């Protein structure tokens, strides 16, 4: 595949409708610049992101998956993001235990007013994924 020089990471982002998606929208309407490496999928709540949705893009070769939700305590559905947090801890343990790279899955709390934080998070994540290099499952046909 491509060497790290022209490697452009592909990131799939699941953003909660009420906070992070609105934050991403704010980043856009505020004309903030951030790398174009992210494909955004809107979900009603970060807790609606079943691990299977995170794993599927990783199996297909996405270099990173971002889950964005409201800050703890601010969930539109009261407690969804607390459950997201536990599910994310479990997912990380499973990825770690399986010898898969848990550093490719990020969870970030970004509120509707944090357009700047959204833009900088994407910047950070793209840089981190560039550092990690292409996801090895991108070329593993047998998964």
């Amino acid at each position: 595949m491509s060497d790290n020089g022209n490697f452009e990471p592909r990131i799939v982002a699941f953003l909660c409708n009420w906070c992070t998606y609105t934050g991403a929208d704010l980043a856009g309407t505020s004309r903030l610049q951030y790398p174009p490496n992210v494909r955004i999928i809107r979900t009603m709540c970060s807790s609606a992101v079943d691990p299977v949705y995170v794993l599927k893009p990783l199996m297909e070769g996405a270099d990173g998956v971002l889950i964005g939700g409201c800050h703890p305590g601010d969930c539109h559905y009261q407690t969804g993001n607390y459950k997201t947090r536990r599910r994310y801890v479990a997912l990380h343990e499973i990825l770690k235990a399986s010898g898969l790279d848990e550093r490719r899955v990020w969870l970030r709390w970004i509120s509707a007013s944090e357009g700047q934080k959204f833009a900088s998070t994407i910047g950070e994540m793209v840089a981190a994924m560039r550092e990690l290099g292409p996801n090895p499952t991108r070329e593993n046909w047998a998964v």
Partner: protein
Amino acid sequence: MKTTIPVEDGDVLAAIRAFLGRLLESGALEAIYVPLEAAGGAAVPALVTDPARMAQANPLAPVMPINGARAVSALTGKKAPGRVGAVLRSCEIRALIELVKLQQATLEGLTMIGLDCPGTFEVPRYMERQGQAGGGLGDYLAAAREGRDPGSDGLTLRTACQMCLHPAADQAAIRFELFGLDPTQGIPVDIPDALAEQLGYSAASADGARQAVLEKVLAAHRAKRDGALAAVRAQMNANGGLPSLFNACIRCHNCMTACPICYCKTCLFRSASFDHKPDHYLSAAQRKGALRMLSDALLFQLTRMNHMSASCVGCGMCTSTCPSEIPVGMIFSAVGEQVQAAFGYEPGRSLEDPLPLVTFQANEWTEVGEAK
């Protein structure tokens, strides 16, 4: 209360059959879930209402064709329809407790009858043993008495049983003690006081041999477990990792079907979501240059891990049922142990412990979700 069931002529099985028959005859229970000996030598789990049928009951048969938690889930649902008893091994009881927490069964109206379990054989190994003189029961009980592995070179226990850390059915209301058992002294049984009174059993002191034997069994199993899990972890951390372990998977879903915890009737992996259109396969193949058929095998295993490994009791039914002989249970135990440790959760321990992915606390993992 601790009592002893008398054993005549060293026939432990007859004594247990008589006890189960009395539970039905006395009206204490209306039905008991227990394996019955059937034609051809199989031990078939059954719901028994006729005390005369207890002549074929064999809860000592060292085989577990299904995890009984699934059966009890079917028998109780939200409310047991009568006074039902179930003869269960520790792994079945622990899986049942998880199913109750998952709202797939209830312990109300259910009397759990547990036995010390020296381990079980795969169904074909069990049938082979049955062909031998005496069916191997004498040796099996002797192994329980001495705390040794009842398996032999050609006929080994299921791997999950070899590394089981819960051979005693601690949560059962009625509990038969087989470890350290001296049949001439009768079988020590834990039994609720009211039931003992109804059946006319009086208190008897416990034998001291059991604890030492149980500890010997646990030490051997722990050593086996540590070695086996370390080996599978080494494979998962080696080049290729988990994907290489599941390369032989044919995605038959047997592991999911046999798993007592995997209860979802509309599993995503059996839904239309994975009935892809032909052009989906072509484009997926074009992306990577080749595409595994059937596709999504690793995704299936990883998703199942996420959905049930916190509740995995390590019964090993998945391994027993895998046609590709993948050590599925070992892999799930290795991963599940780490997930369970992260939440300080022991599946099957108690109804009081909430399922880790259902509950939460506001002030935990506060570093998660924040930039480093």
